Structures are given as structure tokens and as C-alpha cells.
């Protein structure tokens, strides 16, 4: 039997969920016994296989046209899509800018904040992705499993990966269910 292929990517997050994945220490070797790790931000491949993977994992919310592309690509190439962490599940901390709007957030970050040099400008390179409202992954593409947590604990990620690798549905409850 071939091992299930797993790929991951990150969008509008802080990389903390991937850090938490690494936090499972030696158990990562067990995971590697069960799955074949393909493109991830911590491996060399840039994109999930065009031929598709069994499990796609997304960290972070969707806040611009570039992350929309990442989300659609991962959805299209994965049998099972996992939203990992509070930003992917709810929108998380980056979604706080939705309360004021992207333009006001940019203005504060690049111009109005005291830490900016006088005369600073909002970056306007035409190659930059266009900002959108920050959304949870399930607002953009269908998600099969939501794994909340900021970040989800290594135990939770290990449990989810181990269950999926062995063809079972992970059920998050009690000690494994945390939104914080």
C-alpha cells in the first residue's frame, strides 16, 4: 500500500502552526512512517503535486489575491483539506483589520504609526497582490476538517495527522479541542 501524500502551505498566518507541527519532536518520524510529506513550507517542493495529494493542510486566513490562489490550488489538488489553526479556521488575529478595513490598517501600519519614517508611503508596486477582507478558509473553499488553536498543540496535530493517515476521521473534543 502506498503511503498517503500530505502537502501543506501557509497564507495569512504567523508560521506558528507549522512551528507547532515541528513541536511534536520525535513523533514527526512516526508521522513520516505513515505519510509521504510532499510540498510544504519546510520542504523543498514549491507546490503540491499537480497529480494531487491525499491531505492538504492550510495555515492562515485568506487576505489577498495571492492567498486566494494558494487556497484554490490546495483545494483543487487535495482529497481532504484541513484548515490548521485559528487564522485558517476563524480568520484569527489578521481578521481584526476587518473591523476597520484594509485601507485604514495599511495607513496606520505604513504611514500613521509613530515608528514610520516621515514621508513613508503605503507600498504600491503593481506586482503586489491586491488586499481583500481577511477570511477563514471555509469562506473561500470547502474545508473537510477544521483544527482550531492558536496554535493547535503538537498533540492535536499529531492526532489529526495520525488519524487521517490511517483512514480515520479525526474527532476533536475534550482535551484536543482548544480555540486558544
Amino acid at each position: 500500500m502506498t503511503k498517503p501524500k500530505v502537502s501543506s502551505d501557509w497564507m495569512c498566518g504567523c508560521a506558528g502552526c507549522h512551528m507547532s507541527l515541528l513541536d511534536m519532536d520525535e513523533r514527526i518520524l512516526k508521522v513520516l512512517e505513515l505519510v509521504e510529506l510532499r510540498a510544504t513550507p519546510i520542504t523543498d517542493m514549491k507546490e503540491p503535486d499537480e497529480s494531487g495529494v491525499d491531505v492538504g493542510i492550510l495555515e492562515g486566513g485568506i487576505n489577498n489575491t495571492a492567498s486566494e490562489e494558494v487556497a484554490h490550488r490546495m483545494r483543487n489538488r487535495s482529497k481532504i483539506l484541513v484548515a490548521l489553526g485559528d487564522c485558517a479556521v476563524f480568520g484569527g488575529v489578521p481578521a481584526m483589520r476587518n473591523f476597520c478595513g484594509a485601507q485604514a490598517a495599511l495607513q496606520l501600519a505604513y504611514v500613521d504609526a509613530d515608528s514610520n519614517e516621515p514621508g513613508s508611503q503605503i507600498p504600491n508596486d503593481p506586482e503586489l497582490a491586491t488586499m481583500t477582507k481577511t477570511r477563514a478558509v471555509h469562506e473561500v473553499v470547502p474545508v473537510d476538517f477544521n483544527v482550531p488553536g492558536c496554535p493547535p498543540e503538537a498533540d492535536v496535530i499529531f492526532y489529526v495527522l495520525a488519524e487521517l493517515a490511517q483512514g480515520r476521521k479525526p474527532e476533536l473534543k475534550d482535551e484536543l479541542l482548544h480555540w486558544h
Partner: protein
Amino acid sequence: MVQITINEKQIEVPEGTTVLGAAKMAGIHIPTLCAHKELSSFGGCRLCIVEVKGFRVPMASCTLPASNGMVVETNTEAIKKSREFILSMLFSERNHFCPFCQVSGGDCELQNAAYHEEMTHWPIQPGWSDFTVDTSHPYFILDNNRCILCRRCVRACAELAGNFTLALAERGTASMVVADTNVPLGESTCIKCGSCVQVCPTGALIDRNSAYQGHVKDMDEIKSVCVGCSVGCSTRIMVRNNRIVRIEGDWEGAVNHGVLCERGRYDAVTETRKRITTPQIRKNGKLEPVSWDEALGIVADKFRPLASNKNGVAALASTRLSAESLNVFKELFADKFQSDMVTSLEEGVPTASVTSFAGKNGAFEGKLDVLRNADTVMCIGANVNHSHMVVGFLFKRNLPKGTRLINISPEPNELDYLANITLNPKPKSDLALIKGLQAIIVKEGLGRSPLTISNADALIKQAVKATGASLEDLTRTAQMLAHSISPVILFGKGITAQRDENLVEELHRLAVLVGAVDGERFGLLSVKGESNSLAATLLGLDAAFNLNGHQAVYVALGDDYASKSLVERVSKAPYLVVQASYESSLTEKADVILPVSIWAEQEGHYMNLDGRTQKAEKALTPPENVRDNLTVLSEVAQQMNLKMETNWQKAVLERKSSVALN
């Protein structure tokens, strides 16, 4: 009784029980958010929905009365789905992003409810509307973005504190918790009792002092009794790393049922006085740190020749000390030293006249509970919205139900805005006022006792003249009292400070006349002073303090404050020993300072204003070189080879109490 079936379990419950209440009795858990056991049922959050056989739609169990033959299901698939939907709607309404909320991770009832339903995400995303955050209050922050509109805070403010500051403004999704007419909380009529914060199920009301300092699971909870005043509220002291993080009211508390006041909740966490951590003695005019042995030895050497001398050592103790400590203090200085000046810092101001009246009459005061059912409360010389706030809560909360309030005080005070009648009589006119009220009632034939007054007109005239109040106001007051079914007369320092037993007697006569005191009912009580006012007066520690050739003064101050007048009076003494927790203008003048633990670092018993004896528990370990009050008093005795023999429980029975003890 009604028969009801919940989840196939048949139980019998008293009529009027809600389905939620019945389920609780049957040990069946129904998730709730807006429901609270000390608040009226509201039915706002709908989380407690259940299926009732024969009903078209799910019903909120918190407002649905159980009726005979009702068949209820609490956990069907449809109900579970609806609960998840209800929670989704709550989450979608405002900013309920958990990671940076201080109650997230165990202390949030909303988050816990979602975990209970095993929700991994919100099916409906928020609407991204921004609500106001009010940071104007010294003790807490109101963040409407975290609010789920359960109105627990609004109900607590009205139904527990009786203060009616919080309300809901606007409608629907724009609804907001506001203070008064939408003024900043810090400028509102809020009396800072913090009851709203204690009941808030989310992070909408944030306690400034304990925010982000850990969750309940990280803290030790010590159930104790507040020693802030004579009410004796039950508390839960939340401690982490030998530090009080916050204090909450104990919902099981016999006196307060969960509420506290500003003093009880916040004084300990906002304390800024500097601790004394080592014994000190004055050498060449300067206070210098010494060992306990040296300090106690010096005190003993100084006191030895002064024992058995009525003007040897004058002694004062704080009424915040435990009954155990006050008893040893009294035995040491009054019995063994036979000093004629052994009293408390309160000098019996709040208690001497009531105890002396009780000496002839026996117990004449009622219990606090009598206030809960009072239809009229006459508050005379007692600003309970300030000095004994929780006493005020007990009747203020009933004002919307028709309880009337008569507030009598020489100066306008914080109760005036709630009072039906406010009288501001001239100072020292109380006796004339009370006799005048009696005379009006007797003259109008409204009295319920056989009291006759021959010179009623003269007394009424005298009352008008002495108090400066109009005859009309006095008549209204008298009539309101006399027409009541269950009146209560509450009095405080304004009356007792006059040290006039006659005044208490006339007040008692008035209480009997209007039926406040009648057979088994005792609708007359005094609020007294600090936490052990009653124990102190029963131990005889209630004389006015006077130095009369005394050679030394011993002040067992504990963690109390030393008033300016006290410092002035005792600093005239040739030698001053102070047993204190904090540096003060009194310790500056001391010849010997003995550092002692604060209330939370020692255990002991307290007798509250209505005669209830309760134990305050030790919640903290004192600093290394600090000893508790009882130990220090015992060690002073020991140094002088005096054996302390009396038992405080017996000692407090030597005088008749103004209130039945229990």
C-alpha cells in the same frame, strides 16, 4: 408538587420550578449562558432550549415552568443542532476571536459552551461591526465587542446591588450595555461593587487588576470571610504565587449570597501601604531593626513595673483583629495588667450605646435578613451606600418592587437619590426627631403599641424646631412608617456616636410603635463598624480613649489605619509600642514596632453585625520575619510570665449582646 419527565427520568418538583431547575434537581445538565442562580430568569440567550412533547418549537427551559405530565428531552439531535446554531449566531454577532481574550482558555462560559457542543469552527462569520470600549472605570473595562447581551450585568446591578446603573441602550444588534444615560462608567452612579464583572460570562467586563494574570485553574481558591466591615460577607480569595489575584463573592455565602462591595473586592488588590517586615526599636531617637527576642524583651522590661497599675499601660486594639486576638488583648491588659484604659480603636462609637441598652433589655436588634422583606426602610444616621454597602444592597434591590426608603442624615448622602423621603435634620436633633415621629403617630392614632403621649403637640413642635424639617415632611415620614406592614429601622454611627443610650431606647420605642419590632419580628438594627465591632464591645473594649497619666501605650493596630486624632492622642504617651503591618504616621512615633501579618495571612473568628460568628481563613504566607497578631500578643504575655487562660467564646458571653448570637 408537579410530575415531570426529563430524558425519560421521572421527577417530582415543587410548583413554579422551571424546567431548567427541575433538570438540575434530577442531575441533568442543560447548557446555559444568560441564566444565573442568583438572578431572575431572563430567557435571552436561548442556549437552554429543550424539546417538550406537544410543543411546536423548542422552548427555553430557564423560563418554562414545569407542569404536570410534561415530557422533556434535552439532548436530541435536533436540540444539539439548534444549540450549535444558537452559539454560531452569538459568535457571529461581535468580536469573539479567542486568542487574545483574557478569559479564553477555561474562564469563558461562551467558549466552554462551544467546546461542550464540540464546535471546531463557526459556520457563520462575524459581521465586523465595531462597538465601544469604555476604559473610564478604575476597576474594570467594559468591552461591548465581547458582549453577548445576556444582561447578567444589568440584572446583577439591579437585582443584587440595587444600584440600577447598568442598562441596555439601542435595540437588536446595535444593543449596548451602558451606564446611566450612556455616560462613561467612571463618571456614572456606579458604586464599584464589581458584581457585574463577577457575573459576566465572557470577556466583556474585564477586571483590571487580575486580567491576564492566569486562569482560575492556575489559582488556589480559599473560601473566607471579608473583614472590611461588620457585614461579614463570604469571599473566595483567588491566590497565585502567594499573592491575591482577585477576590470574588461566594455565591454560597450566608450573608451576602455572592455580592461584595468596593472595599471587600478591591481594597486588598489595590493596597499601596508599605509593609513592616522586621521588629524595630528606637535607639538614640532613631528606629532600628532588631530581633524579635530583643524587641519583645524590651517591651516586657518596660511593662513589668507598670503591671497591676490602673494607669500603667493604656491599650488600644483594632476591631479588625480576630476575636481570639481581641480576647487575649483584653485579658492581658484589662484583666492581668488591670489597666483602666483598655479599648478599641473605634472606642465603642458604633456599639457602646446599643450594648449598654442591651444590658437592660437583652437582645433587641434583628437579623440582616429582615431587610430582604421590608416594605419600608428608615435609614437614620447610616450611609449604607458607603460604609456598609452590602446592607444597602439587601433593600435597595427591592425598591422597584415597591419598598420605600426614608433616608435621614444631617448631610445629604449617596442614598438620597433612591429615597422616597429625605430628611436632613440639624445635627444632634435626633432625639427630638424620634420623639416627634412617635408623637405624630400616637396623635393620629396610627400606633401599634399601647404607647400614650400626653404632650404630643409640644413634642411635635419641638421636633420641627430642633430638626429644621417641615411639619409636613415629619408627618409624611411618620405616616409612611406607621402605614407599613413590615418596616425596618436601620441606624448607624449618626445615632450611636452620640453615646446616648436614651436615643437607642427611643428608637426602639418608635420601632415597637410602628410594628417594626413586634413579637418574633425584630425590624431594628444598627450597622456597627468594622469587622469585629460586636466582639470588641462584648469584650468590653468600647470605652472612649483618654490618657490619664498612663506610662505607656500599646496599640494593636494590625493592618488597620491609624486616624489622625488617634496619632495625636497617643503620641503624648511617654512610651509607645505599636503592633502593626504597615508603616504609618503612628509607627513613625513608636518606640517599639512589632510587625504583624495582615488579615489574609492569619486565621480567626469574626462576629458580624447581626451576631453571626464566622471564621476568616489564612490565604497567604506572611513575610519571613512577620508574626500573626495572636502570636505577638501571646508572646508579650509570655515574656511577662502571664498565662492567658480565658476562652473567647465564653468571654464574649459575659455581656448581653444587642443581637442574638449564632
